[in-house]
């Protein structure tokens, strides 16, 4: 893109605007860009750049969590690695807590399915909870600034921190409690040496949540939680408890798993159609 796009703009602009563009170009002084149209493009958020060749892509990213293969150690490792690479602060005050991924009990994860005679084993299993990246994400509908949005290319529900105004409508809309609000400046709870310099922190007053490691996918890496589970399962000699893949691709590993196992989704009755599946 770069220079070609701008060259194109320059030619197009000059020919469209005719003489009027000449002083405009002179005024731009450096003569490197016909910036009026560039600015217009920019104003309407026309993206620049391309998708890198190594990036992982899918129509609709999804994840399966095989709770039978998951233990507390793995669950905590997932949480730890995710929060570390994303600079999620560890705040002890539960009111100010920020979390992207965390283990919880069955009765909390599947409130409507819980009953007194539930299988004993299930009760103790760590259910890894995170953003469900719903197909019909209510959070995206309510966001007044489109700070949270569903990425068209791969269905990930993302946060654009530059736009978030902290209104917390999305938190009210999310049925899964997957979102956290930064009540305090998160940097106060991050030790400088623990910060991941490759990823930004957040500021006080914005909402945040799991992003399916969009920044890693762009570089051809699977989500960090999936990766660490794979490594740990390998050491143990078991199957990996987390499977990440394209829900839209019938041949994907994820779809094969969904075909062969019984899975649950959280609060399916709400019609949000989560993309995180739980193999019980």
């Amino acid at each position: 893109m770069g220079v070609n796009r701008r060259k194109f703009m320059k030619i197009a602009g000059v020919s469209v605007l005719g003489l009027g563009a000449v002083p405009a170009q002179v005024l731009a002084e450096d003569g490197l860009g016909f910036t009026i149209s560039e600015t217009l493009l920019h104003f309407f958020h026309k993206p620049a750049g391309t998708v890198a060749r190594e990036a992982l892509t899918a129509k609709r990213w999804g994840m399966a969590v095989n709770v039978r293969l998951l233990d507390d150690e793995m669950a905590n490792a997932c949480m730890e690695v995710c929060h570390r690479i994303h600079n999620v602060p560890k705040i002890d005050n539960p009111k100010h807590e920020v979390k992207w991924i965390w283990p919880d009990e069955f009765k909390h994860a599947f409130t409507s399915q819980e009953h007194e005679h539930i299988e004993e084993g299930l009760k103790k299993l760590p259910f890894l909870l995170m953003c469900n990246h719903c197909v019909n994400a209510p959070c995206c509908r309510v966001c007044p600034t489109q700070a949270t949005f569903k990425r068209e290319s791969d269905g990930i529900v993302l946060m654009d921190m530059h736009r978030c105004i902290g209104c917390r409508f999305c938190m009210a809309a999310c049925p899964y409690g997957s979102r956290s609000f930064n009540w305090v400046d998160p940097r106060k709870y991050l030790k400088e040496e623990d910060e991941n310099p490759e990823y930004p922190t957040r500021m006080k007053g914005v909402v945040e949540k799991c992003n399916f490691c969009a920044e890693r996918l762009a570089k051809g890496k699977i989500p960090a939680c999936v990766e660490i589970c794979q490594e740990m399962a390998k050491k143990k000699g078991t199957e990996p408890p987390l499977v990440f893949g394209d829900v839209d691709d019938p041949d994907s590993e994820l779809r094969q798993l969904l075909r062969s196992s019984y899975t649950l989704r959280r609060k399916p009755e709400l019609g949000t159609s989560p993309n995180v599946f739980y193999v019980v």
Partner: protein
Amino acid sequence: MYDGGKIITGVVIGLALLTFPFWYNLGRAVTKADPKLPTKEKQCVEPKAYMKTKHMQLLDLWRDSTVRAAKRSYIGFNGVKYDMSLQNTCMSPDCHSKKTEFCDQCHNYTAVVPYCWDCHIPPKEEKPKEVKPKEE
């Protein structure tokens, strides 16, 4: 002059307010922006003149592209491919490794307070040189 006292007082107050920049700067040293260019990297993604005036728009474009459109590769004017990232490309150890010696120079001089650093982590620098104008 009639009502001279009041009028002169008014004029003096008015002039004092209007000449504020002149006397405010009296005796203050003339500072200058002195951004240090990276030693390793010789070329930016776009020409210097372009970056000088429009870097904020480029960065804005970058953030929209990466966050919203999943497009993270940028082909610079010289045909080189870059990862569109403030922290990992612009401010990488190989490039502008010191915010205080680069960004802050002009920003402080022209009193521009970009909110990038509210979230984005600037490169680590030796402590004493830290002069981060943090605005509330």
